[in-house]
């Protein structure tokens, strides 16, 4: 097995943005869905201490069918960036064929045209009524786009984690994210994040 094949055993996601956007919560829910409900191996880590409160905060999930040695991300398969600073800082950790998902209202400069831009925060504010649940809209989109999690289990894990009384709002947010992502055809995107001309 080559190193490349071995890296393909792992699927790595980074949820990034600024402290307070609920990205660690999103990652924990995701990890719980994949690990507890889907029964796969999973490692979830996050920024800790002062760095978690600055301009960019991150939480990672590594998924594998086999036991996971190194618990943090090595090369990202999917990067969610909920602000420009995180997008700029972490874009270079993506695999060439990785998926970049951004909040289109908060990330204006796109480092590649292999990008999926969805207005997560706007959807949360306008349609759900709380900007706070933008993380769950994004979680829904990430859940569908990565293809690594059973979406019903994702909802179960979400409902088990959120405070009582907010289940409906969170579940609606998750479903809106899934719906938005379902509109996207990954095959329409350039195949590499590096250069749009390379794909020929």
């Amino acid at each position, binding site marked *: *097995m*080559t*190193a490349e094949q*071995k890296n393909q055993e792992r699927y790595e996601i980074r949820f990034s943005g600024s402290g307070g956007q609920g990205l660690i919560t999103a990652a*924990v829910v995701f*990890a*719980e869905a994949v*690990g*507890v*409900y889907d*029964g*796969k*191996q*999973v*490692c*979830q*880590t*996050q920024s*800790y*201490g*002062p*760095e978690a409160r600055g301009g960019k905060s991150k939480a990672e999930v590594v998924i594998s069918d086999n036991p*996971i*040695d*190194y*618990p*943090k991300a*090595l090369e990202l398969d999917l990067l969610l960036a909920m602000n420009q600073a995180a997008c700029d800082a972490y874009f270079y950790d993506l695999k060439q064929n990785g998926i970049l998902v951004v909040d289109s209202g908060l990330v204006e400069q796109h480092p590649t045209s292999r990008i999926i831009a969805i207005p997560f925060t706007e959807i949360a504010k306008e349609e759900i009524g709380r900007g706070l649940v933008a993380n769950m809209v994004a979680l829904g989109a990430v859940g569908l786009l990565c293809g690594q999690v059973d979406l019903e289990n994702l909802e179960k894990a979400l409902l088990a984690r959120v405070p009582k009384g907010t289940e409906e709002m969170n579940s609606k947010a998750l479903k809106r994210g899934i719906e938005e992502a379902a509109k996207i055809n990954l095959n329409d995107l350039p195949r590499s994040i590096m250069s749009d001309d390379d794909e020929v």
Partner: protein
Amino acid sequence: MSDQVKQRFLLQGNEAIVQGALAAGCRFFAGYPITPASEIAEQLSIQLPVVDGTFIQMEDEIASMGAIIGASLAGVKAMTATSGPGFALMQENLGFACVAEVPCVIVNVMRGGPSTGLPTCPAQGDVQMARWGTHGDHPIVVLSVSTVMDSFTLTVKAFNIAEKYRVPVILLSDEVVAHTRECVELPDTEEIKVVDRMKPSVPPDWYKPYEGDARGVPPMAAFGEGYRHHVTGLIHDDMGYPTQKPAEVKSFHERMARKITRGFPDIQMTKGYYLDDAEVFVIAYGAVARSALRSVQDARENGVKAGLLQLITLFPFPRRTVTPLLQQCRAVLVPEMNMGQISREVQRVNNGECVVKKHNRIDGKFITPREIFDHLMKL
């Protein structure tokens, strides 16, 4: 949802330590919150009262250590958890626990030091302190966790060793393991082997509280059970009374050392990967062992016959496992998040047979597989 699915939990390393402690029968915790160990106290403050246990937040770590010694003498399995600065404060009372042979478990989730250091960053700088932090020759056991599952099983093991040998056991974790969430399937209570301290089998009048059994470990009566005994930090005779008689002092120290050396096969734990035909190998522990495992596999794919020896028990240093590997391999790499605290142990047992290389990170960052791989390719 099937039963099997129900038993899976997504836990942080710190939370798994809590589950391990409860499974081992820990019913007393005294501590003071400190990053990155606070989740242990936080969870135990919720869970101990549920099982009729006691949780006390003390005024500091000196008192925390004193409180768990008292609880253990009263017959209750006891633990505290801290990080470097708190562990420094515990050293005096830790020595008391060693000399009075009080079973207890001290968790140190290591962060960057010295002093306040780097509170939120991972490090492995307390390894030698865990062994030699308290003064004088003393028996002690130091274990190191590298996964969330380890955090559970080794906490149980730490209590078992503490009870079986009447010795304080230090469980070293680090910020990476402490805050990584992994899915674990916790074993049922019946499947977990729990060891309790040996009680005296003689009537109270015949009880010699510090006379070792065949293993050198004295049976331990709890305070209040009718066995009158004296507990002191002074070197003492079989009855627990202070002594300066050279013969008694000598035999006291020898018994203290012997009870641990006789337990080596039980206490010294390691895990080997790809070692059978290894020509070079890595010795690693804690979170770094995870990076090392990946780099060893990568090196194998690049034609280097590399192996990994993961140390689970750091002290007593498992030389019986390490030495044959030093004879087998031409070089060993010891990556650590310190300036070289286990590499000096490796050098100590090496006798010049093998090239010992170090890889040290002291910048508050976790060692990556790539760094270890690059060294391995040059060995």
